[in-house]
């Protein structure tokens, strides 16, 4: 086609450029609008996080002080403190941590190192992932029946701790499995090449290498356990315990339980809401510390091969 012909045909476009331009503009505008909406919904959850913490902090100001941490529960809001619930939560951790780490790591070692790939292994794995999805109240019912009534542990620290251990065990197992999987094969091969047996290899090579990952997972599981309320309520932890827990068989109350009852009682006296807020700050602070430790371990000790 010569230049002249092209000039002549200039008015007869094959494409309707006007419509095309309009359509392009629309598509680009739509893209920008959508991007804005998407940013907003991402920021929405961050905003909520900010509002939540700010709001709770505001309600706790004036109530959260050393006296509040040191004194025991009381029906008078001005006198009430959370010394007992803090100790209860610490006791709970003292049971949940060893039980879940020992059982969780043992299960993970079996699944990753010993079990032959087959139906039994995939059955256990499916079972674990299903357990992780069971609502925590159901674990409460299990604890109430088995630990509380069958083994006659009542609503003691031991019963609460074992119930919580079962609840967070899947988290520890999955995290430990991931950590064990990440141990490179050449380390194991080197150990076998030196004549080490399987157990020696696991004990001296695999476990130490996987330890940071296991610890990170365990701490996260523990932080889930101390924030969990429903199983303890179902176990029948009494509302007001004035005695300080002194052993694994004594009755106890924990921080989330106290938040629950104070929130419910806020209808009676609005000051209880402030007490609940102050307790939430203490709980969130503990969780924050634990999560920071977990992240620190992960960043500091985890080697990449």
């Amino acid at each position, binding site marked *: 086609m010569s230049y002249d012909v092209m000039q002549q045909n200039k008015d007869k476009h094959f494409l309707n450029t006007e419509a095309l331009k309009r359509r392009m503009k629309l*598509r680009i505008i*739509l*893209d920008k609008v959508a*991007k804005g909406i*998407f*940013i907003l919904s*991402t920021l*929405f*959850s*961050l905003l*909520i*996080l900010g509002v*939540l913490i700010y*709001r*709770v902090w505001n309600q706790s100001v004036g109530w959260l002080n050393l006296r509040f941490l040191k004194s025991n529960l009381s029906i008078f809001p001005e006198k009430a403190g959370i010394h007992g619930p803090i100790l209860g939560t610490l006791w709970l951790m003292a049971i949940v941590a060893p039980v879940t780490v*020992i*059982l969780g790591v*043992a*299960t993970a070692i*079996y*699944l990753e190192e*010993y*079990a032959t790939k087959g139906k039994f292994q995939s059955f*256990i794995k*499916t*079972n674990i992932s299903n*357990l992780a*999805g*069971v*609502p925590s*109240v*159901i674990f409460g*019912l*299990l604890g109430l029946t*088995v630990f509380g*009534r069958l083994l006659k542990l009542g609503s003691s620290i031991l019963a609460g701790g074992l119930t919580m251990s*079962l609840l967070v*065990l*899947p988290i520890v197992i999955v995290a430990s499995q991931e950590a064990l999987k990440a141990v490179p094969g050449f380390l194991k091969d080197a150990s076998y090449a030196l*004549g080490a*047996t399987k*157990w020696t290899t696991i004990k001296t090579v695999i476990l130490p290498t996987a330890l940071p990952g296991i610890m990170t997972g365990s701490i996260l599981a523990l932080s889930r356990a101390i*924030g*969990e*309320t*429903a199983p303890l*309520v*179902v*176990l*029948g932890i009494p509302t007001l315990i004035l005695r300080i827990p002194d052993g694994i068989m004594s009755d106890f109350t924990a921080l*989330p339980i106290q*938040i*629950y009852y104070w*929130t*419910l009682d806020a*209808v009676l006296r609005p000051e209880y*809401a402030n007490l609940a*807020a102050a307790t939430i700050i203490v709980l*969130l602070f503990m*969780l924050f510390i634990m999560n920071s430790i977990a992240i620190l371990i992960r960043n500091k000790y985890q080697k990449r091969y």
Partner: protein
Amino acid sequence: MDKSMNVREVIKDNFNNKRHRGLEKFIPKIFLLAASLSVVTTVGIVCTLLFDAFKFFSRVPLREIFSTKLAPLSANPSFGILPLINATMITSLIAMCVAIPIGLTAALYLSEFASDGLRRILKPIMELLAGIPTIVYGFFAYSFVTPILMKLIPGLEAKNALSPGIVMGIMIIPMVASLSEDAMNSVPNAMREGAFALGSTKLEVAFKVVIPAAFSGIMASFVLGISRAVGETMIVAIASGSSKIFTFDITRSMQTMTAYIVEFTSGDAGSGTLGYYSLYAVGLILFVFTLLMNLLAQYITRKYREEY
């Protein structure tokens, strides 16, 4: 060294050493025992629920169970489960109405629009939301969201289904966003680039390429979100109250299955009463429902996952 050592002999010695061999055989058995504990736990849950739920179902006629009248503590107790199921459905529905659109769009932003650096900051902060104990969300719903809603909606009761529903949705956003984003991230870049080469905008790539390709993962995240909402306890126990009426009015107080369990055990339903057994019946229904949801999510990811 006077005595020369043969490596092969050392290994053979080691292998024949009785104590060692015993240990090597014994250790896996201990680990197997630990691993079977998870199976025992499942069996334990099913047995305790079935055993006591059976006592309930054998004493209460089916017509009463599937009625809308729930009055466990009245002189003439009635155990209709429909109010509980209804309340659970309604609060979960509200939660998903919040969690699905916000979670999905946040996932789209993180996976398709945000820069790598920004994503690395935003995602962990979002996951912080998932780490907050549910009791804290319950407090937040009752003492912050409900008063705001009361100003917006006149006639809203102090305990209602709307506020815990919304807060539950907020709690589930990180879960939906995180799982959906993982699914979107596993869509290969070549597919996106193909669409970009044809002149698509990012939005078109997101909706016409990424979402269809990651569909199974996204659906699984929704199903897991629903399962989480149905099993959530403390938020509804605090903010939705304990009214046992059968209603579709979200401004009123209603009791979910989980809240019923929590209310009753913290009350004085002693062992052996019908009220005590009803907890296990409700627990059984809850367990079966969440189990089905979780299996469905696993099925979706396994069956419809497209490998690239």
